């Protein structure tokens, strides 16, 4: 090994780096017989010694406890926000499912009684002061004499007013009827039931929703066809 080759291994020898054993032996043998390379190796070993001493001194250094405290606070804040976000994310599809389930539940509840079918019922209007209804207990309201044409018209032709809250009656504000399913045949005979739905159901029908009140319930009138299927819905405030 000559001096140039020695320069290539001197640092690794001084640092104790794992290297080819033969190269190490050759390097050390060269340094033993070369004054300049011997001093060069001594210099490198000196640097390694001081570096090791510095590393040993610094081994106990650590970030102040305040850093850990701040990070844990950030962790908790992030987890809280994450939980809140996950809750909000899960609410939307769940609310839609609840709305659909409520409509189906209303249909099933009305189909259960085996008594005489109501005859000649053209359509139904909600009572002026509807009693509060539980979420899973749709209420059947005795039909009155509503004009069928009016219901059909409402069903077929939504009001051109931009505001969805278009009808007011007996202190109630209600939207136009919104078709639940596409049905080319108009509803000639049917029933209307009032149910309570989560407000998030508004969004499912493309209506604006105040997210702060998304958990609250809202009343809705559901129009059922003769087959018992929901045909249209309107929201009542």
């Amino acid at each position, binding site marked *: 090994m000559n001096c140039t080759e020695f320069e290539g291994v001197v*640092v690794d020898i001084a640092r104790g780096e794992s290297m080819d054993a033969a190269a190490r032996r050759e390097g050390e043998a060269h340094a033993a017989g070369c004054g300049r390379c011997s001093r060069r190796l001594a210099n490198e070993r000196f640097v390694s010694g001081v570096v090791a001493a510095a590393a040993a001194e610094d081994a106990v250094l650590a970030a102040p406890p305040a850093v850990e405290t701040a990070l844990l606070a950030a962790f908790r804040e992030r987890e809280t926000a994450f939980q809140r976000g996950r809750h909000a994310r899960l609410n939307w599809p769940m609310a839609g499912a609840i709305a659909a389930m409520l409509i189906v539940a209303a249909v099933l509840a009305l189909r259960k009684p085996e008594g005489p079918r109501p005859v000649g019922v053209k359509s139904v209007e909600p009572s002026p002061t509807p009693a509060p209804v539980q979420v899973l207990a749709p209420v059947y309201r005795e039909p009155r004499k509503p004009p069928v044409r009016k219901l059909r018209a409402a069903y077929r032709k939504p009001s051109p007013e931009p505001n969805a809250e278009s009808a007011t009656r007996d202190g109630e504000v209600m939207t136009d009827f919104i078709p639940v399913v596409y049905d080319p045949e108009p509803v000639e005979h049917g029933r209307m039931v009032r149910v309570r739905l989560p407000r998030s159901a508004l969004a499912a029908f493309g209506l604006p929703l105040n997210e702060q009140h998304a958990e609250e319930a809202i009343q809705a009138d559901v129009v059922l066809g003769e087959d018992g299927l929901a045909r249209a819905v309107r929201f009542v405030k």
Partner: protein
Amino acid sequence: MQVPTNLADDGLLRLIASGNEQAFTALYRRRQGAVYRFALHMSGSPSLAEEVTQEVFLMLLRDRSGYDPARGPLASYLYGVARNLLLRRMAEDRSHIQIGEEADEEGRTPEQLIAHSEVESDLARNQAVRSLRRAILALPAGYREAVVLCDLHEVSYAEAARVLGCAVGTVRSRLHRARALLAQRLAAKRSRSSGCLV
């Protein structure tokens, strides 16, 4: 839920992803020392090292998916994040590197200045360590990184290359040059303090 103390970093990260605070604490306590010391050795500023350590772990919280175990161990990833933050901060504020060049005015080589290969006494060693710290801070950033990672933190050439984003050969050559500069500066210091050439 109690977190096993010997759980590997990846296992702790999985627990952290599920919101386990103890896992985060365990991981932080396991890795913060190296990150803090790296930042301190690179900057010479305890306050900056503190800030960088905090920011590194905040980034780990914010961007857990940024770490890919397939690309190397977590320790290397944390060094890399700390390095990027440090380079940005030091570029913004050059005052963190306060140590000037300490070239030997008479142009003497280390070979002429150093004959002893060991630190003879505690006093001399403490003095040498102080000189080394100043000399490391005076190194160009690329050389400083190599010395801090490979020598002070005993990171392998391959891992250092991963952290620095360069080839292993580059790490080796930077380390060689850095150590030559350190040897020169330490020798100059020794000769000044002893008042004579050995």
